[in-house]
């Protein structure tokens, strides 16, 4: 409370005046001045972004190098040295609570990486070879059909388990404080999973993949500002030969450049970015207090009792 604030004096005067009759106006004025005070206090907080909850949800400690304790934190918070906790709360890893979906998704990613590397031995991302390589894998390579179907099945399943993992997180409220940042990392991982699925669809170079990518990239034409047919696209000089669709396909049609770009994004670009985000995701689970366990139920009657105090 600022003693020199004229609004407060005014509100005090009005509070006394309230007794003499104008109670409603007095209450309104009092309420507005209290709101103003709160806004000023919050604005002061936002002057220093490091004091905000948003900042603290992303960076958990200050990184002042002069403090020796912070230097030791570099070791203590190292993800590779501390990927697994020493002890875990048994309650939090029960399948009825977690459904095991996050773990299954990660194991599917490992299966996809392993089978994907083996598939790369037999695949050439060119228009001449791509579909022939798939036929060769299906009919001539020992266990080739199994290898390809493991990769395809795991990819489909990974999209499903990622969705179910998010569903569980919503139902158990595990996205709430202090896990807001990790929820956002999870959303990025969902998008990356969908992009991996989409880029992998074109690689067999069959009709299914060709038309899926044709439809998908045609939708990119309508991107606001970056698509030639999207809002403000034409005004910003976007044409079918320089817009986002052109960038995705490496040309104006789904052809050899699109196949090569899909291959590079699918095998190198997106898995690399996804691995980094996954490391952050797992590290944050530990730093946010482990897997969110089933909390004891809150009773409304007790909450009211706390408020009265």
């Amino acid at each position: 409370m600022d003693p020199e604030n004229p609004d407060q004096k005014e509100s005090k005067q009005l509070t006394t005046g309230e007794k003499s009759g104008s109670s409603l106006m007095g209450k309104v004025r009092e309420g507005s001045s209290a709101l103003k005070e709160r806004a000023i206090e919050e604005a002061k907080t936002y002057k220093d972004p490091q004091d905000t909850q948003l900042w603290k949800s992303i960076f958990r400690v200050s990184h002042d190098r002069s403090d020796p304790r912070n230097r030791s934190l570099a070791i203590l918070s190292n993800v590779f040295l501390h990927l697994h906790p020493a002890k875990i709360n048994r309650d939090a890893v029960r399948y009825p609570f977690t459904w095991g979906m996050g773990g299954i998704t990660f194991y599917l990613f490992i299966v996809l990486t392993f089978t994907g590397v083996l598939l790369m031995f037999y695949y050439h991302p060119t228009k001449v070879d791509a579909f022939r390589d798939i036929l060769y894998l299906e009919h001539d390579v020992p266990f080739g059909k199994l290898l390809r179907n493991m990769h395809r099945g795991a990819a489909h399943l990974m999209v499903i388990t990622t969705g179910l993992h998010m569903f569980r997180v919503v139902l158990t409220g595990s996205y709430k404080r202090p896990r807001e940042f990790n929820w956002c990392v999870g959303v990025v991982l969902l998008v990356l999973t969908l992009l991996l699925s989409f880029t992998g669809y074109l690689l067999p170079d069959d009709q299914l993949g060709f038309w899926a990518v044709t439809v998908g990239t045609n939708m990119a034409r309508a991107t606001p500002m970056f698509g030639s047919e999207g809002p403000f696209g034409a005004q910003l000089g976007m044409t079918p030969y320089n817009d986002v669709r052109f960038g995705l396909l490496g040309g104006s049609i789904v052809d050899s450049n699109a196949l090569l770009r899909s291959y590079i994004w699918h095998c190198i670009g997106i898995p690399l970015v996804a691995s980094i985000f996954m490391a952050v995701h797992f590290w944050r689970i530990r730093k946010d207090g482990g897997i969110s366990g089933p909390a004891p139920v809150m009773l409304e009657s007790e909450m009211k009792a706390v408020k009265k105090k």
Partner: protein
Amino acid sequence: MDWHQLWTIASAPDNIPIVAMLFLAPFFTWLGIKQARANDRLVEQLEEDPKLAKTHHRKVEPWRPGWAREIHVWP
């Protein structure tokens, strides 16, 4: 109805995830609602009986006596 046609469509490799979702989505929705309702029932039970609220293990699936609460995993 030609069941063979239905099987041909349902077993096509690219339709398998859709068929899987037909079972998985309703199952996990049912499981989620079941767990949420169990939680609500426990809240009602504890609200009605304040003595129970003081003593009861306040989770839907209470930890049984004698069970270790933590698992030592590393190192």
